[in-house]
């Protein structure tokens, strides 16, 4: 693992700043959400007034259009909240040991953040949630130790994926290591895709387990204790 940038001061700084910005965004989203809710409440109150006056009073001409727009904004807000949550989770990656966020959750957050990139080729990425029955404790890794390389492999693979294809990922723990398997939805990677993935993994200094599937192995680093970061970074607001 040679992602020294992510593990170093720059990474920690960006992680802290991103986490803090995400928390601020959540406050803004909460205000949008309440303002939209108030608009809905006002429309509903208007409808009640109209009902009470047997339709002779009140009544907003554009009520239905407004309701449509409010619903649309709620939908957009939901997407924004999902993205921000994923970003906040990934942003913590360089600040803390990964023990408090299970790797599948962190990888899922990464996939949420990559959605737009994947959409360019209409590729969907699915995280296999059918974990083995007895999962040992997840190894002590910073999220950046594995999220960065996984992202690099995904990006390398993407141009070689068929339009509308599917990527399947799975996380497993074992013997002080985390294994992240990346593969196509059906069959096996094309030679080009596999070569691109292997090249990206090698460039990131990641061990690849031998075999048909592409499995990235991240060994627990006994010295992967993060340096201190601003204590307030990433805290609640």
């Amino acid at each position, binding site marked *: 693992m040679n992602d020294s940038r992510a593990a170093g001061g720059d990474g920690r700084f960006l992680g802290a700043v991103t986490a803090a910005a995400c*928390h601020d965004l959540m406050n803004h989203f*909460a205000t949008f959400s*309440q303002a939209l*809710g*108030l608009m809905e*409440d006002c429309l509903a109150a208007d409808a009640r007034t109209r009902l009470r006056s047997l339709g002779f009073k009140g009544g907003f001409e554009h009520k239905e259009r407004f309701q449509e727009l409010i619903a649309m904004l709620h939908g957009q807000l939901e997407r924004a909240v999902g993205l921000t949550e994923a970003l906040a989770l990934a942003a913590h990656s360089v600040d803390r040991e990964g023990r*408090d966020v299970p790797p599948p959750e962190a990888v899922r957050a990464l996939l949420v953040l990559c959605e737009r990139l994947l959409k360019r080729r209409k590729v969907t990425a699915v995280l296999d949630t059918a974990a083995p029955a007895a999962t040992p404790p997840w190894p002590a890794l910073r999220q950046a130790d594995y999220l960065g390389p996984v992202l690099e492999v995904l990006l390398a693979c993407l141009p070689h994926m068929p339009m509308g294809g599917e990527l399947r990922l799975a996380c497993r723990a074992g013997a002080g290591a985390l294994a992240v398997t990346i593969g196509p939805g059906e069959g096996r990677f094309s030679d080009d895709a596999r070569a691109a993935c292997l090249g990206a993994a090698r460039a990131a200094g990641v061990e690849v387990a031998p075999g048909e599937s592409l499995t990235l192995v991240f060994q627990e680093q006994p010295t992967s204790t993060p340096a201190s970061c601003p204590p307030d970074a990433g*805290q*609640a*607001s």
Partner: protein
Amino acid sequence: MRKIKLLLVDDEENFVNTLAERLKMRDVPSKVVYSGEEALEAVKSEVPDVVVLDLRMPGIDGMEVLRKVRQSNPDVRIVILTGHGTDAIEEEAKNLGAFHYHKKPVDIDELLGTVKKAYREKLEDAMVAATFAQAGAFKEAQDILDEDK
């Protein structure tokens, strides 16, 4: 049934004022303050039944308000409503006696449900304590009230 005495504490003025307006439309009026200092003053001048409290605020932060109010008025129920707290922060707030922990943005009816539940629990505790006190069992009555601490 008397109205819930509800105190909303958040430094995001637009957010908390809109929230108060929506709660009022649902027949739950509230008092609004914008800082930890104002919250402590408000609790001193008129003890609320339930407080909806943001955590990160300039000056005295929400966690400190939670700690102080739970010490001075253990029967006040405190509902945390925060931007994006971590699991560790949620655990800390619950250990300090927070009734519930919501993350923003929250659905108004969900929040209102929590507030009503908190109020109901407070009333029930007070009624049970009063029953014991009327029967002369003052120690038991005091124990019930102290359970909130």
